[in-house]
């Protein structure tokens, strides 16, 4: 019965808050479109040249490409590894979930810098010397998105009551693997797409691990942005805004998908 209108004070508070949140974004956007912006409230001349310069910059395009394929590979690897594992745990070893919860909290609780320290120590010498390579980064990314993937897959399995579905399929004569492929997978697919996209957007914004583990060798979009900040403010703004718009579109898609699924589940 929440049909009352917001009072004066809440309106002012939220207005200020939104202004505070949007101001930096807006400024970056204006800066990216400004030919020249100094000592005036708004830029005096506008241009798209920063964006066109950006699109003509091979380093930008290659950084974008690097980011895209690294994130895609990591999410795909995570899917291949996590799907059967989470399925097996949920269905056959539910008592392991306690341990899994602990495991999954760790990437949240341990900051990226700390994770990087351990990874660098482990892989910069010894039998597996993969320091500075994409292998190490993909491995690190796997851990970063572990919580999102685990929760996403697990929640999907629980919402479709995977155990009951599987039992029903088996009673009808389906073999276990067939049952998984024909009954469970199609049902949890939408949920898995959402957590994959979420994981993708998380990785796309990753800077700490990337910079510390492979910063000198592999340039993702974040590393590229960092390196160009010092050069030209306008160009860097254009990068930041393009990046932001991309992430924004991704999260819009995510939200739409999430809402559609939420609706289906609740109906």
């Amino acid at each position, binding site marked *: *019965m929440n049909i009352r209108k917001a009072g004066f004070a809440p309106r002012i508070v*939220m207005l200020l*808050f*939104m202004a505070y*949140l949007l*101001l*930096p*974004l807006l*400024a*970056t956007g204006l*800066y990216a479109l400004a030919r020249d912006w100094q*000592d005036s409230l708004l830029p005096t001349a506008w241009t798209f040249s920063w964006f066109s310069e950006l699109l003509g910059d091979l380093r930008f395009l290659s950084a974008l490409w690097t980011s895209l394929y690294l994130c895609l590979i990591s999410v795909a690897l995570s899917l291949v*590894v996590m799907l*059967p*594992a989470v399925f097996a*745990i949920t269905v056959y070893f539910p008592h392991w979930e306690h341990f899994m*919860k602990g495991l*999954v*909290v760790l*990437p*949240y*609780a*341990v*900051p*990226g*810098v*700390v994770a990087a*320290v*351990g*990874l660098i*120590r482990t892989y910069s010498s010894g039998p597996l010397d993969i320091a500075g390579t994409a292998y190490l980064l993909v491995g*690190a990314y*796997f*851990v970063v998105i*572990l*919580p999102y993937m685990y*929760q996403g897959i697990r*929640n999907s399995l629980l*919402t479709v009551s995977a155990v009951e579905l599987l039992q029903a399929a088996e009673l009808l004569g389906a073999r*276990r693997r067939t049952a998984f492929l024909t009954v469970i997978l199609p049902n949890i697919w939408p949920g898995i797409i959402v957590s994959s996209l*979420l994981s993708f*957007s*998380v990785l796309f*914004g990753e*800077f*700490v691990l990337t*910079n*510390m583990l492979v*910063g000198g060798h592999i340039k993702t979009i*974040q590393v590229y*942005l*960092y390196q160009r*900040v010092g050069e030209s*403010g306008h160009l860097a703004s254009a990068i*930041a805004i393009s*990046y932001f718009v991309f992430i924004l579109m991704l*999260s819009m898609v995510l*939200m739409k998908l*999430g809402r559609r699924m*939420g609706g289906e589940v609740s109906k």
Partner: protein
Amino acid sequence: MKPRNRGVILALLPFLLMVLAFQLVPAVSMLAGSFRQEDGTGFTLGNYLHALQSAYYMQAIKNSLLISITSSLIGIAAGLLCAYCITRFTSRVRDRLLMLTNMTSNFAGVPLAFAYIILLGNNGVFTLLFKQWGWDIFGDFNLYSWSGLVLVYIYFQAPLALLLLYPSFYGIREQWREAAALLGAGRWQFWKTIGLPILAPAIFGTLGILFANAMGAYATAYALVGGNYNLLAVRIGALVAGDVVTQPQMGSTLAVLLALTTLLAVYLNQRMARHAESFGFGPAAKTGSNGKVSLRLRPAVRKELGQ
């Protein structure tokens, strides 16, 4: 062994290997490293002693703690106020506001630091404007110092606090307010005796998350101040992957210390979430320590983490 069990183990094996290789072994290696001598052999507590005695490292720890506590407290105050306000709007407006908040929370790390440089840096738009207009309230303000860092940290802390706290406000049932009103409690008395105590676990839990978030924040600080301001996370980065000389053992030691504080904070959050559940509402939302909260609006994702 039955073929069925073999299949199950086959399903789990790659997962266990990945976790072992990229999560557990590095953690153990880091822990071990923190007890190694400078040449990487033997066993010593020297690194910890050194870290706690060195004025330089202690300053980094102190700076990090101070900035985390300050930004968390301001963030939670702002988040609490906004979360309360947001419950006063109709659900349509509320969803819009939350979407905007969620959207800006994607704006973190390097791009965020950069936006602040444009606005308030040495040649920032506002800096120049204020200079031109002759305002010197910001005369002492320096983006690349403590005050600047706090300002930027609050930018990602406050929305996070709002997104984590507002569901708890909906846990306060309208009928509790009505019952309290009928029993003679005024508005303020209701919040003092019922509202805030019920929110308390969520507030402390969120505080834990905010603290961990700020302690571990690296990208923003690194992009904003680089090596110019002594913060624990940035110091660790320099020790381990710096351009000059690396000191992996010392880096490990500081990393262990940092991890201890964030683990403690997240543990607090988990405890509080369990406590909040005893009041009959779902787990307080939790989130990662990298400031990413996209999609945490969806209840399904809000259940994230270890419940």
